[in-house]
């Protein structure tokens, strides 16, 4: 079961996109706490795309600033979420993690978003494909162990 939502990459659409992810995780059988972790990871990725993906793109001639959000449920075992945009090539996973041991005066104000994604999801991967940045995240439904693949 795969559901894709395509909306323009604006902050106004953040809630609708997050609701889509929330519903998919819930429908896949995740408990509320895990759903919220998925939601948090999704917000971080979406906000990055909304803020940066199309910043260098010419509004008149560039690709339409859209976000494609796909949610897939693997038979109640795991949720896979993909966020794709046609903006400037950028791999958010390239950035180093923030140093979470620094005292408050030395902590950088930013950098937490992708770090939280990595903490909340079981796997995160980036690829550049046909002019799109695609970030894919997977979270296993707690309590489920993966079954062997169908042959």
């Amino acid at each position, binding site marked *: 079961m795969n559901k894709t939502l395509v909306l323009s990459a604006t902050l106004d659409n953040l809630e609708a996109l997050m609701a889509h992810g929330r519903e998919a995780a819930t429908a896949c059988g995740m408990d509320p706490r895990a759903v919220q972790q998925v939601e948090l990871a999704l917000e971080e990725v979406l906000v990055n795309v909304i803020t940066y993906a199309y910043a260098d793109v010419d509004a008149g001639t560039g690709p339409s600033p859209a976000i494609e959000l796909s949610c897939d449920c693997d038979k109640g075992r795991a949720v896979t979420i993909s966020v794709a945009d046609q903006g400037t090539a950028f791999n958010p996973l390239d950035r180093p993690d923030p140093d979470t041991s620094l005292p*408050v005066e030395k902590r950088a104000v930013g950098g937490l978003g992708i770090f*939280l994604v990595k903490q909340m999801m079981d796997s995160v991967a980036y690829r550049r494909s046909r002019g799109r940045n695609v970030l894919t995240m997977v979270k296993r439904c707690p309590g489920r162990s993966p079954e062997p693949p169908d042959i």
Partner: protein
Amino acid sequence: MTITHEISGQTALVYLSGRIDAQSAPGVNEEINQIIDQGRNRMLINFKGLEYISSAGLRVLITVAKRLKATSGKLVLCSLEPKIYEVFDVSGFTAIFSIRDTQEDALASLDA
């Protein structure tokens, strides 16, 4: 997202409830900074009703903490729900913020 506050002696008590995400974080930032602009640099933030916080909210808190620290102010947080505490913990914030379970304990820590 609801943010209210009251002044108790020298301390600003700030109450957060609802959700802090990328859309509501700027409002929280503005309101808390206005309180500090009014001369309050002893602050307690009560998270009792807060159900969700993302990095946008954490950024507001770190900016507020830096601002208060720079003026020798004090900041204490209290009443974080476990799922909120988890986000703080993963981010390293439990080590750099003063966090208490109850408002009573939090106020006592400000006087210590």
